[in-house]
């Protein structure tokens, strides 16, 4: 089995000129966590994810401290909202490099790549490097588990 058997073909993607605000609206409306950013030929040039958006709300100074257990109330940090200027930036300024797999990639290979790069969703591309689908850890996991032998009754 390869990733095409479990990927979603109906991918929501954005263009590099899309603003951060527009991308956020799409994430909310579709209730998804990752948007591939594609060029005019539909080739992925990056991805913008929920965590990239949330660093605008909760900057990564939190991660400087080894352990935030002792913070019960984030106080003034709660009031941090991205400025209009930030929201009007294009997704290109915020996106991360896209890690993609070919459509003939096997399930275990795809899962191994996701583990290695700590990804939860991964765009799938055709031979011509065009975006054809997106797959997630759950999609791949379910596809693998469903091949397990069924218990005898």
């Amino acid at each position, binding site marked *: 089995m390869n990733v095409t058997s479990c990927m979603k073909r109906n991918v929501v993607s954005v263009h590099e000129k899309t603003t951060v605000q527009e991308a956020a609206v799409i994430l909310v409306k579709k209730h998804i966590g990752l948007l591939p950013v594609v060029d005019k030929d539909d080739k992925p040039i990056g991805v913008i994810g929920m965590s990239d958006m949330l660093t605008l709300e909760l*900057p990564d*100074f939190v991660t*400087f401290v*080894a352990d*935030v257990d*002792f*913070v*019960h*109330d984030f*106080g003034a940090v709660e009031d941090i909202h991205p400025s209009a200027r930030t929201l009007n930036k294009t997704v290109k300024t915020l996106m991360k490099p896209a890690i993609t797999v070919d459509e003939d990639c096997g399930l275990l290979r795809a899962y191994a790549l996701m583990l290695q790069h700590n990804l939860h969703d991964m765009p799938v591309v055709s031979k011509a490097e065009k975006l054809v689908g997106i797959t997630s850890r759950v999609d791949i996991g379910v596809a693998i588990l469903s091949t397990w032998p069924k218990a005898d009754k």
Partner: protein
Amino acid sequence: MVVPAILSIAIFFGSLILIFSEKLNRSITAIAGAALMVGLGMIFGFYSEEAALKAIDFNTLGLLFGMMILVAMLEPTGFFQYLAVLAARSSKGKPMRLFILLGIITTVLSMFLDNVTTVVLIAPVTILICEIMGISALPFLVSEALLSNTGGVATLIGDPPNVLIGSAAGLSFNDFLIYSLPIVLFSWAGAFLLLRTLFKKELSKRPRSVKAIMRLNPSETLNEPLIARRILIVLGGAILFFFVHNTLHISPSLVALSAAAIALVWVRPDIQEVLKRIEWSVLIFFGALFVMVGGLEHAGVMEAIVGLLERVSNVPPILFGVGLIWIVAALSAVVDNVPITIAMIPVIKGLGEAGMDITPLWWALAFGAGFGGNGTIIGSTANIIVTTLSEKTRHPITSKIWNKRGLPVMLMTCAIASILYTIVYNWF
């Protein structure tokens, strides 16, 4: 002796320029420079492998390594966060009070631990606390770097240049407490009051959220209270032994390494984790610099400098000392103070051999190297660390800000030290 001198000077200054211009990492530069110095030294007959090994001051490396192990073990216990959160709670959300408390904590820590370590551990919690309060972390970060640089000058173990000077001049832990600490106290007080005035506007702003600060729970910051207690006991014991190391005829490095050994046996941590947190790059940098400066010495460069300085020996010794403070400070503001100190040591020793009273000069070197680092944004590693961290906040520290806040502190501390130096000169 002209060719060896030119070669060794070229290697040493070439390395300094590479480090200063950030073209090449300082440890890589130092290793390459050391290898080149030994190689060319052997070809041109002015340096040898044996001489290079002898040039390494293992007392300095041992003291640094021992203290690094103790800190590497203390770091994951959450003790440093505990102190910062305690300060935040005690400040009751008043920025000025927080400023005073964090300033004092940073200073005291940096008197016994490396400045860089102190800042690396305190600055991230500071940012978090300030963000929770809704105030700019900038005044706190700048002051932490400046005050830790200043406080570190007070003790033998507070600052790497002091470790170097103590080892080279045979000055004990108590010598530093008697001769350096009082002068540093006055300079520190001057720096602190100046910072309070310079940041008055920022510090008088009302924080947006005080309630959240009072909900921080210090006890939850201590992940390993038992381990923290054990390491602090060992650290305390080590400090007691530092007081008497001279009377017992043991070197500070033996005290530090023994303390590290006792803590390791008592706590039995995952040694790989501890070793990962040791700043090997610092130890390598020091080792390689010793080899490089050893080359300069063997090529006769230091003798030539001493010869030049002797010509100006009709300058009154006090003026010579004060001049040294300012020259070393100016150099340390633009280049790392460690190579400056390592290079100055043989020069001062040479002056001693030429019959000059050099004890006061060691102190001048310590004050200049210690306070000079405050002058620019790249003057010390602590400055670079707070600057880098501040870039993640909404109030990044810039060179322009440093020139308005750090430079005055450097000038103030050097001025106070110079005045006191002149007054107590005869006691040195």
